[in-house]
């Protein structure tokens, strides 16, 4: 402990501060863009997957295959796939962009499944009523089903997003500057692992604590009680 106190003056420099802030910002960007893209595309995939009829057979099969494939792979493998996929396709991307694509794939597949779970949780008689009143599939989903499914979707979606912040740490394996990578760099600069990773731990905690608070507010706003 005394060692950490001795290290602190050397650690608390303007340069390290900017470096950590940059890493924090990248973690935040990976998390937010991943969740937003994953949420939007995942929602679309879930809606496609729940559609009936022969005309939707191909998009439905694609949505199913995409969700099942990326949901079953470890996050690190998906990131490696994105990395090597980009090199094979000779697409010129930064490491950050590659990590972002990989993380979006992971978030999309997981959130698609969470949304699908919410959609199928709504009583089938709601579909019957809507169909009998001449609602098309998309209108039924948007006006009747999803407003009832949010209560089922939001809690696991928030829980996933909090876990997802931690998944962004895998981006460090590609050499993307984010919090875990910053911890690694700081230790190689000679700071103790306790101080470097301790700082990283605090920043991860602050980030997920703030997002958890936002999540709780969102849950309360749609009428999900905070505690029983």
């Amino acid at each position, binding site marked *: 402990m005394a060692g950490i106190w001795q290290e602190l003056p050397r650690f608390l420099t303007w340069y390290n501060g900017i470096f950590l802030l940059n890493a924090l910002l990248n973690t935040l960007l990976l998390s937010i863009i991943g969740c937003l893209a994953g949420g939007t595309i995942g929602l679309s995939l879930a809606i496609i997957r729940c559609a009936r009829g022969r005309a939707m057979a191909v998009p439905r099969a694609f949505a199913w295959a995409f969700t099942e494939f990326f949901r079953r792979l470890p996050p690190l493998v998906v990131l490696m796939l994105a990395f090597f996929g980009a090199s094979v396709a000779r697409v010129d991307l930064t490491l950050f962009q590659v990590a972002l694509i990989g993380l979006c794939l992971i978030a999309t597949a997981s959130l698609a499944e969470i949304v699908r779970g919410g959609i199928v949780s709504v009583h089938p*008689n*709601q579909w*019957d*009523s*809507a*169909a*009998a*009143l*001449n*609602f098309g599939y998309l*209108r039924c989903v948007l*006006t*009747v089903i999803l*407003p*009832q499914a949010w209560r089922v979707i939001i809690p696991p979606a928030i829980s996933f997003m909090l876990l997802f912040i931690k998944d962004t740490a895998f981006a460090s394996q590609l050499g993307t500057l984010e919090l875990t990578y910053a911890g690694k760099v700081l230790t190689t600069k000679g700071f103790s692992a306790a101080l470097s990773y301790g700082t990283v731990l605090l920043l991860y905690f602050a980030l997920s604590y703030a997002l958890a608070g936002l999540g709780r507010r969102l849950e309360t706003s749609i009428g999900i009680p905070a505690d029983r």
Partner: protein
Amino acid sequence: MAFLQIADLSATYGRSPVLSGVSLAVEKGEVLSLIGPSGSGKSTLLRVLIGLLPPQAGSVTLAGQRVDYAVPAALRALRGRCAIVFQQYNLFQNMTVLNNVMVAPLKIKRRPRPEVEEEARALLGKVGLSAKLHAHPSELSGGQQQRVAIARALAVKPELLLLDEVTSALDPELVQEVLDIIRLLAQEHMTMIAVSHEMGFVREIATKVALMSEGTVVEIGTPAEIFDAPRSERARAFISKIIRAH
């Protein structure tokens, strides 16, 4: 040709046949009541008519036009003229009473909001729910929910109203309030097909009664013919069972 002509209609749930060769005709302003034991295909017939279960064979002709259930446009046209009220009300749980009644005319028929709202308020007044416009379905009794469901069905101005055991899920003291509304609709000459277990009510409002058994129509006639002088053995057995139960 009758307003609604059903000829040799058959349907299956998976591989099990649930309707086989049903033929019926309903004239404009008539109230056809479907009676019969549970599992005889009464509710299934209504689900086929509104296009929730595709028919396997046979034909349905509404106002002189044969309905092709495989063609989305034909199905939309049919649902523009028919409405159904379900046994379990099936109100949209995320909407208020008023919005439940307004949603189809507003979003599907794309009619102007002030006009739709005025009509919806009038319909809800008719079913005695003016005081519950902004309540959600979960805040209403079963009878009230069913009355909202009737108002919602009427809001699309159907030419044919299908009623699927609309009082079966209700507590006995709530049955009457729903039957009163249907009685009123019958007096206004609304064309209806009603599946019902309320035999006294069937006798009172139906102009025609069809007895169904094992997915087919066993006997059809006026209430007096069916209840007082059933011709077939199956009809006699069913009627005598009902009389004993009452």
